[in-house]
């Protein structure tokens, strides 16, 4: 299995100037434990995790003992001070981010997560962020892998069912606005999504369903909803 088959595609990111308070809110709302920090030209420059946010006044974990230690002047305290008083992502983020390519093998990724004792690794294509992988992504990948049907030609109805199951498992897409039909192994996708990225990700997802020979992607971007004007 490769990184692209395992990764979560819809990644919440921040910029260097995103405030700590905003980051904390993002982590809680999205039930995630870290966010990659992107530069203006969309390169990953760091990552901010829950751990980086600890010792913050806003999160209520600032201990008086910590202040004492600060003034005792041990090495690294100045850095911690910035962590507690910096207002932006760039002040608290971890700069050295270990990342993998989307072709990276699952074995390598497992090794990296284990040996570096990290909880997640960003996935890059040509330096651009395309996903993120944590342990739970491995669990999900194994839960979804279609073992019984490997090397067996599947009939269209089974394929259609498999596509629906795959799509419904993805948190980033709303299956209610989509329909899939399969004829002779060719999947026809119709309906609406929120963005071109979702449209593309959907295609990759369906292409990954074993037995699908070809994908006709007729999915469209949902038209923006007009805000009703008051008169």
């Amino acid at each position: 299995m490769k990184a692209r088959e395992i990764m979560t595609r819809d990644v919440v990111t921040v910029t260097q100037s995103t405030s700590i308070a905003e980051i904390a809110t993002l982590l809680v709302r999205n039930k995630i434990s870290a966010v990659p920090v992107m530069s203006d030209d969309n390169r990953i420059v760091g990552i901010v995790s829950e751990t980086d946010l600890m010792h913050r006044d806003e999160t209520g974990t600032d201990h008086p003992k910590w202040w004492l230690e600060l003034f005792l002047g041990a090495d690294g305290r100045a850095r911690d001070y910035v962590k507690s008083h910096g207002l932006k992502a760039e002040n608290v983020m971890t700069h050295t981010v270990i990342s993998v390519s989307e072709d990276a093998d699952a074995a390598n990724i497992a090794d990296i997560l284990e040996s570096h004792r990290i909880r997640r690794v960003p996935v890059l294509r040509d330096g651009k962020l395309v996903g993120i992988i944590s342990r739970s992504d491995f669990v999900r990948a194994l839960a979804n892998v279609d073992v019984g049907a490997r090397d067996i030609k599947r009939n269209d109805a089974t394929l259609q069912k498999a596509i629906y199951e795959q799509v419904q498992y993805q948190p980033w897409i709303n299956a209610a606005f989509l329909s899939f039909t399969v004829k002779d192994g060719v999947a026809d996708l119709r309906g609406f999504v929120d963005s071109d990225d979702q449209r593309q990700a959907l295609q990759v997802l369906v292409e990954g369903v074993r037995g699908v020979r070809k994908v006709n992607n007729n999915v469209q971007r949902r038209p923006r909803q007009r805000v009703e004007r008051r008169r």
Partner: protein
Amino acid sequence: MNVGHVLRSKGGEAARVRADDELQTAARLLGSRKTGLALVIDAAGRLLGVISAMDIMRAVGDHGADAAKMPVKAVMTSDVGVCCSQDSVQHALEQMVARRVRHLPVVDDGVVKGVIRLRDAVEFRVGEVEMEAEELRRYIYGAGYR
């Protein structure tokens, strides 16, 4: 106050799988229960080991998609620390710290009762310590006599 109290107040119900279940079954269970750990038990409810997201990650890394058909017993961790309902919360905490784990199965007379989580145990101890401090304060200031 002991481990049994924490289980009752926090609900220590844990995901359970059989040693011969396929790994894919375990992965689906962890996914649907939104947890990172399941207990591996036999027909009599005895604990054989635990299986975690880390174990599954390792198996997928080593065997790819073939890991789905492997039996749970091939990848589970069988050297598991346990505690019993009568143990103090402090004792359970010390075990978790010593073993560097965040969950501890609770086993009474060979039968699995549930799992105590590090977080719940810490919360419980903090509550206890605060209560003790309050009682001490009342004792010192004689609040009980007013």
